[in-house]
């Protein structure tokens, strides 16, 4: 079930009404049933995978809770890791692995035919396996107590607002909330609705309209050069943000209406002044996951420089591969790793350049330049994220500046009016972002009288209704 579907608009109010109508001790039953229904409306049989993850990690957690020594707990951690990552490997990476090895075998003329699995990638498998893995790792580390209530643990794994595309929650943050008594709080519900409204605006007005241009160009790359490639690449940078952040806002808003507090997933990433900062603002729940469960266990930055570089690169590369089984994602991750590494290695040089150009005397100009530079680094990396294959990504890189003077064709793909609308909507979003850097827009509005607040909300709602795309387009991150 998609957040931007009529089905969800009927499903969700029913769940909310039933939720607040039920006594606290019975609510988990409703949430579990609603979450499984939510997931099963896509492909019913794949709910079994969630159940397997839930059962294995519940048992592993309970067993680890009975053992005091880490060494004794380890086998249950391994059980959890093997089963969850095994599922992930089988459904998401097996064919990629098989195809890559096959290429190698063919290259050395080894007559071996490797099998290919004909399975559909289960929606959100990377999200819920990572969420449940964080639980078993935290239990193993003794940071949280194992959950005794199987039903509530099952809701933690399958909680529908964030089941298929995050935010990837931590057990220490989300699990206790299932025991809290959530009363119908008009303020929280209003806050949740506002977040959902903003999320729908990002998804349906910006992301889906930008997709009209991006899909046309990236779906048929060889017939474009110059401006269309450039325009599509810029638009994809905003499409991917608005698609994923839009989903996250709707997820967080949905949970908030039910009384739950989910972690922030995006904080205006395109206003970052460095790639390192970008990763503290983009897909925060995943970047902190990799930080806590991979980068730091590898030694983080408290090691020698060479080892640190290795830790950094391996974390970014695996983070790239998490997004999809394709070399393009690996390159995308590696590029970001290289950005951070190069930025670290050149910090002295950059500092001297700033002094030489006297940019430190004009901090605002310096800030704008840093933001623009960071955005362009991210946008360049998105080429590899969006292109279907490495040769096609390379085609974009090598052809995007060819024939730029041949007219404004890139702006008319999907209709010039569509392009103008997308640009205006992006400009509005970035204005809100700039404002939010210094003040919380929503809080700012909350202090204003209804005569100011209502027209803003009504206008956004109408813009979504009149200019949004209503074709129930999937969220990009569902495929991960």
């Amino acid at each position: 079930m998609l957040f931007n579907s009529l089905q969800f608009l009927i499903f969700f109010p029913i769940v909310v009404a039933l939720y607040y109508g039920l006594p606290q001790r019975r609510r988990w039953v409703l949430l579990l049933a609603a979450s499984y229904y939510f997931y099963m409306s896509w492909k019913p049989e794949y709910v079994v995978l969630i159940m397997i993850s839930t059962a294995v990690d519940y048992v592993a957690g309970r067993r680890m809770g009975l053992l005091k020594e880490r060494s004794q707990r380890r086998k249950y951690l391994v059980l959890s890791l093997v089963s969850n990552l095994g599922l992930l490997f089988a459904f998401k990476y097996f064919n990629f692995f098989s195809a890559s090895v096959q290429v190698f075998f063919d290259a050395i003329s080894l007559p071996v035919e490797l099998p290919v699995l004909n399975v559909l990638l289960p929606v959100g498998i990377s999200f819920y396996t990572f969420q449940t893995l964080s639980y078993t790792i935290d239990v193993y580390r003794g940071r949280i107590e194992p959950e005794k209530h199987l039903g509530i643990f099952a809701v933690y794994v399958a909680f529908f607002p964030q089941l298929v595309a995050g935010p990837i929650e931590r057990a220490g943050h989300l699990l206790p909330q299932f025991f809290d008594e959530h009363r119908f709080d008009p303020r929280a519900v209003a806050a949740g609705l506002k977040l959902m409204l903003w999320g729908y605006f990002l998804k349906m007005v910006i992301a889906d309209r930008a997709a009209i241009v991006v899909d046309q160009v990236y779906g048929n790359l060889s017939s474009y050069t110059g401006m269309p490639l450039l325009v599509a690449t810029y638009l994809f940078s905003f499409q991917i943000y608005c698609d994923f952040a839009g989903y996250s806002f709707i997820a967080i808003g949905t949970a908030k209406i039910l009384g739950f507090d989910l972690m922030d997933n995006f904080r205006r990433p395109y206003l970052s002044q460095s790639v390192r900062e970008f990763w503290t603002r983009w897909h925060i729940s995943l970047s902190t996951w990799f930080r806590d469960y991979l980068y730091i266990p590898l030694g983080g930055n408290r090691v020698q420089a060479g080892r640190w570089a290795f830790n950094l690169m391996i974390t970014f590369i695996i983070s790239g591969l998490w997004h999809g089984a394709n070399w393009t994602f690996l390159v995308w991750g590696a590029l970001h790793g290289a950005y951070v590494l190069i930025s670290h290695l050149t910090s002295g040089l950059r500092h001297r350049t700033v002094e030489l150009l006297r940019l430190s005397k004009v901090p605002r100009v310096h800030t704008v330049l840093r933001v623009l530079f960071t955005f362009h680094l991210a946008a360049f990396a998105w080429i590899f994220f969006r292109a279907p294959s490495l040769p096609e990504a390379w085609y974009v890189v090598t052809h995007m500046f060819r024939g730029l003077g041949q007219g404004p064709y890139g702006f008319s793909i999907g209709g010039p009016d569509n392009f103008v609308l997308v640009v205006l909507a992006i400009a509005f979003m970035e204005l809100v972002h700039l404002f939010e850097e210094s003040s919380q827009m929503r809080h700012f509005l909350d202090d204003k009288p209804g005569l100011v607040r209502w027209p803003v909300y009504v206008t956004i709602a109408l813009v979504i209704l009149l200019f949004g795309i209503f074709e129930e387009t999937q969220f990009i991150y569902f495929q991960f």
Partner: protein
Amino acid sequence: MSRLSQDGTRFLRRGLFFALVVAALLLVANAAYLAIVAPQSVFELTEQQFSQQVPDVRLLFMGDSHVKDGLDPRVIPESFNFASPGENYLQTYWKLRHLLEREDLDIQAVVLPLDLHSFSSTRTDQEAYYWYWSRYDFSGEIRRSIPEVSPLALRITALLPVLGNGLEFVRVNWRHSELIRGFQVLRGDFGQLPDKAEIAERQAAEHLGDATVREPLLLESFARLLELAADNDITLVFVRFPVSPQYNAAASAYIGDVDAFYEPMLELIEGTPNATFLDAHALYFESLELFSNSEHLNGPGAEAFTRYLAERFF
């Protein structure tokens, strides 16, 4: 608890009021859409022109943009161009069925397209312009091509065409192409364009890229069209429309073996009385000035091709 309930009630009341305000404004916008945009759409303008000419129509041109822009009814008496952009066989079938039920009409022949993209799954976007198509009442069959869209969603689409179509308010002033007896006169000269192959590739990709080239529902509708024509004693002329060599090459690449692609359809046509096929795709390979773009004829091209068709059949 009672204080919370009061807060909650007040909140719900306000929420309801907010929803009513948004709904009221949406209805106003929808009314404006129906009054300003819809009558100016090529669909409605065609219907209006058709209703003015109704008793005198014997020959219909039906199908998609290749027909809409490619057949000029001024060349053949008692003909009308009832095609519409993006129209597929399912839509054509239901439209023709409704027309045949009318007692004030005596349709004797219909010209239809049989192009490389005619069965492409890109043709089955039944939600687009559903506000128009809903009048032909085939929602039950539409569900077969878009099972993920609920009947309620389709109903809403039909009743509130303004949803997601706000840009149409801007576009309504941009339409400059003439519409004469349903025929849309395109300008432009493809022969003058420098990047013909690239344009052709893009246009072919729009129709056939990432698509099933023989969508079962459209094949079935094609067969039903033949049955409908046979039952009503109507002559059907299927036409593979003239295209540029660049477009033909690009589209053929998606199809593969073009002869094998056409074979089952041609067998069905041969087995139907009064049905025939004209392959004119290469007719103007050397006359690119007759095209508006790589696949659509312009005004002079349409006139020339309609004369060519008339000499052979009408």
